[in-house]
């Protein structure tokens, strides 16, 4: 807000201690809620996409409140991209496995037993697909945010 030239290095890192501590308490809870939404996607409202965005928002909250993670993130950014690429690749592998194993032999065929309706482990590949999509979305949205922050920081140096 003050000017274009102030980078994150010159500015004070992150926010005040109160905000930092509160976010340290809240962010893991939000992350856990995202995992819950993802895993219970086939039972209650929500699913992979929703859970992934919630997990990413916990990540973004942590970055916004505590700016000192940014230096570490600069080195570790490739892990986010790797996670995202691996997740979408695994989703494709899951689809091809359905083609190979399932009795109906279709792309995305459900090759696991359906189980009892309403139990946590049921629905065949649906929970697995939910988890994979959750990881993909979380990594994608986090890496968009990290890219915006890091490249802006590099530009001003």
């Amino acid at each position, binding site marked *: 807000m003050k000017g274009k030239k102030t980078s994150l290095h010159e500015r004070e890192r992150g926010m005040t201690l109160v905000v930092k501590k509160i976010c340290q308490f809240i962010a893991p809870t939000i992350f856990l809620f995202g995992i819950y939404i993802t895993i219970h996607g086939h039972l209650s409202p929500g699913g992979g996409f929703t859970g992934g965005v919630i997990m990413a928002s916990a990540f973004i909250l942590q970055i916004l409140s505590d700016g000192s993670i940014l230096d570490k993130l600069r080195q570790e950014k490739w892990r986010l991209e790797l996670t995202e690429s691996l997740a979408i690749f695994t989703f494709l592998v899951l689809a091809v496995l359905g083609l190979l194993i399932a009795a109906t032999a279709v792309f995305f065929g459900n090759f696991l037993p359906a189980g009892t309706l309403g139990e946590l482990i049921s629905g065949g590949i*649906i929970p697995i697909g939910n988890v994979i999509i959750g990881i993909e979305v979380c990594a994608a949205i986090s890496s968009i945010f990290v890219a915006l922050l890091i490249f802006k920081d590099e530009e001003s140096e």
Partner: protein
Amino acid sequence: MEIYLIIMLVLMILGSIYSLHAKDLLSAVVSYGIVGFGLVIAFLLLYAPDLAIVQVVVEIITLIIMIAVITNATHEEQAKEFSFSSIFYIAVFLFFGFVLLGVLAQISGLLNSFGHHVTRMASAYIINAQEAGSANIVTGILFHFRAYDTLGEATVLFTAVIGILTVLRHHGKKKEDKNEG
């Protein structure tokens, strides 16, 4: 319930009109948030909690990213000059708007009332959703009948990330770009 929906729609339209006319870009983005959060309540009123959860989280993250972009850009809006061409554009807009409204009024009598679908696929989805073994029918459809759709969504997101990383990257750009920036 319908009256609440109409109130939310009016609020959303007012918010978007205000965000078009706001002097400050930041207040424009914040007032545009009225549209997003109004949509959340509209989804809840229409019994679509899945969409409401997605909308509320995506709206928050979009707002954060938009504000992060705007703090780096100019705040003041450039003054628009009023010319002959803008009258032409408004005339074209009004003409096609009325044509569209006329067509809509003609054909809306042919459609079923809201909530009563005419397509055969929709009822097939609901009847066969039990086969997918998922208590949440929406997820069952997304990962069983329409798994291609989900794959497409994931691909779109993946492509978007690659595009953003390519546009914003610092390494690998030509040197004259650096001198300009």
